[in-house]
């Protein structure tokens, strides 16, 4: 009680000290007189302030004990010794309740596990594998005893292998080189095996994938690898990978291999393009021959049919038809050409021939 008063007086004393001139303007006479009292140590408020200072400064005790003492004094001043003991108890039980709450929360949070669909919870009791939780909410023992590690078993992961940009060449069975890019799709089949069997599962998949792919590629020819047998190769690699991983008891399921790119190396790409060009050329030859063949066939049939028709008519009146055809033809022919008829047999015409006559003026003009 005294302490509070003392503190209050100190504040008031300070207030008075600072606002001395201001205080005088407000017109309170008793406070106007107090500043000189305070300096002397005569005023009642100023005295209590001084005493408080003396207690702190002059005792010479350690700060911890002083703190304890002050705390004790605070309760003692409030309501006596008994009252002080009683007022300490609710405080302690509050801490206790807090602790209980904390432990309870810890128990709830570490013993209730909600496993999302597609995941499994692998439970280890003191480090030893105990059992695997399915999806849903399940209870286990609290944390230091049981620990749950969630593993995603449904989602399919992809690892890309082979060349991505830089060329990564593989040897084929016929000692050619091929530039392959492929990916492995996999998921976790047995979560506890996946967690506890392999030190580096992803790296293992990577290496096993590469090894299996190269082993299969080394058995097929370049054309097979680039062409129709891709699906077969993919399937075989997946099967080989699964066998190897199972022999490690990896708990991994290989879902499939996808060959994204199977090209000849850049260095020989031109030669491969030439093959394509040659295939086009060959097709061109064949097409041309077919066109010729069709044309010739039609023409021969047309001519033969025409002859047959004429011959049919000719057979009815051979002599007349023959003469008629002869005259018609000669008529057409001779009407279009320059003709010279020489009467006397054995006489060579020395007159300039019509063609010569015709051509000489042209030559002169030139």
């Amino acid at each position: 009680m005294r302490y509070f008063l003392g503190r209050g007086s100190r504040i008031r004393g300070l207030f008075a000290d600072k606002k001395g001139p201001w205080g005088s303007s407000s017109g309170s006479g008793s406070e106007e007189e107090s500043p000189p009292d305070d300096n002397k140590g005569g005023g009642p408020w100023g005295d209590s302030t001084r005493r408080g200072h003396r207690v702190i400064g002059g005792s010479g005790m350690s700060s911890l004990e002083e703190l304890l003492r002050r705390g004790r004094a605070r309760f003692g001043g409030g309501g006596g010794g008994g009252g002080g003991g009683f007022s300490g108890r609710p405080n302690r039980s509050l801490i206790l309740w807090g602790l209980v709450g904390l432990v309870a929360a810890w128990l709830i949070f570490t013993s209730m596990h909600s496993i999302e669909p597609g995941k499994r919870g692998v439970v280890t009791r003191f480090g030893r594998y105990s059992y695997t939780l399915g999806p849903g909410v399940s209870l286990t023992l609290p944390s230091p005893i049981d620990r749950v590690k969630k593993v995603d078993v449904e989602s399919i992961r992809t690892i890309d292998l082979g060349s991505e940009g830089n060329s990564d060449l593989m040897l084929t069975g016929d000692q050619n080189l091929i530039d392959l890019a492929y990916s492995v799709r996999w998921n976790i089949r047995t979560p506890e095996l996946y967690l506890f069997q392999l030190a580096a599962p992803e790296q293992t998949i990577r290496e096993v994938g590469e090894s299996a792919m190269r082993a299969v590629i080394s058995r097929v020819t370049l054309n097979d690898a680039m062409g129709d047998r891709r699906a077969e190769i993919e399937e075989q690699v997946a099967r080989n990978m699964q066998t190897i991983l199972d022999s490690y008891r990896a708990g991994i399921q290989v879902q499939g291999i996808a060959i994204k790119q199977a090209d000849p190396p850049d260095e020989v790409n031109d030669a491969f393009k030439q093959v394509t060009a040659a295939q086009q050329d060959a097709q061109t030859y064949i097409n041309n021959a077919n066109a010729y063949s069709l044309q010739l066939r039609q023409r021969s049939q047309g001519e033969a049919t025409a002859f047959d028709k004429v011959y049919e008519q000719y057979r009815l009146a051979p002599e007349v038809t023959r003469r008629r055809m002869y005259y018609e033809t000669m008529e057409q022919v001779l009407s279009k050409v320059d003709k010279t008829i020489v009467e006397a047999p054995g006489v060579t015409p020395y007159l300039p021939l019509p063609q010569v006559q015709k051509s000489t003026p042209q030559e002169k003009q030139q």
Partner: protein
Amino acid sequence: MTGFIGRRPLLTGVIALIVVLVLLGSFPIVPETKQAVVVRFGKPVRILNRYEPGRPIGSPGAGISWRIPFAEQIVWIDKRVQDVDMQRQQVLSTDQRRLQVDAFARYRIVDPLLMYIRAGDEKRLTDQLRPILGSEVRNELGRVEFATLLTPERQGIMDSVKASLNRIARQYGVEVLDVRIKRTDLPDGAPLESAFDRMRTARYQEAQSIRATGMKQGQIIQAEADAQAARTYAASFGKDPDFYDFYRAMQSYKATFVSGTDGKPPAATNIILSPQNDYLKEFTGRAK
């Protein structure tokens, strides 16, 4: 006691902490992924969670264990399958051809005590296994021909690499599960270039042969068409060779003097005729 706590709360806390830590340290938790060698004053006394083949996960071994505090130390050793990668090696086959080989081995520490005594820790173990793997691979692959390296039989070679590697690895308490060739490549430079050249020439050869085949097929098709046309003509014209001769002559005259061939008009022609010509026989009025 309570008085002591009241008097020395800080010291009490520290002591309690130490006691808890010692207690925790006395009951180590052995996880599924680890084996442990308990060493008492530098002398291995027992093994925790030792790998045994065929034993399912979750069987006794892993779990909570004990040790004497301060006197016993625990050396943790991985129980899982681990891998050791061989550095790229150049292998010379019996027919003096070079090949770059990458291989890896998968192993498991089956005798942690032996491994602890012989190698010390896992890093030193892999450091010792790696060169052995390299030399074994080189030895075994150096005994076969180049072509064999690329065939299915190479897995047989790898099995013998595995066997000989296992003989050495056993001394370290390690079991080799699998040795595999990851990659076999031609070395850069001359061997790679010559392989490219071979591929190129093979493609050119293929291109030529495709062209030749195409040409051959074209010729056959044309010849067949010619033959069939001849057959058609013969069947038709053979009925009266004499008339065909006349008929064709007439067509030929027209083509030569009037309509021209191949769409071109005929060249200008002069014809000198004798009145005795058959066509002009009526000129002289000496009809039959």
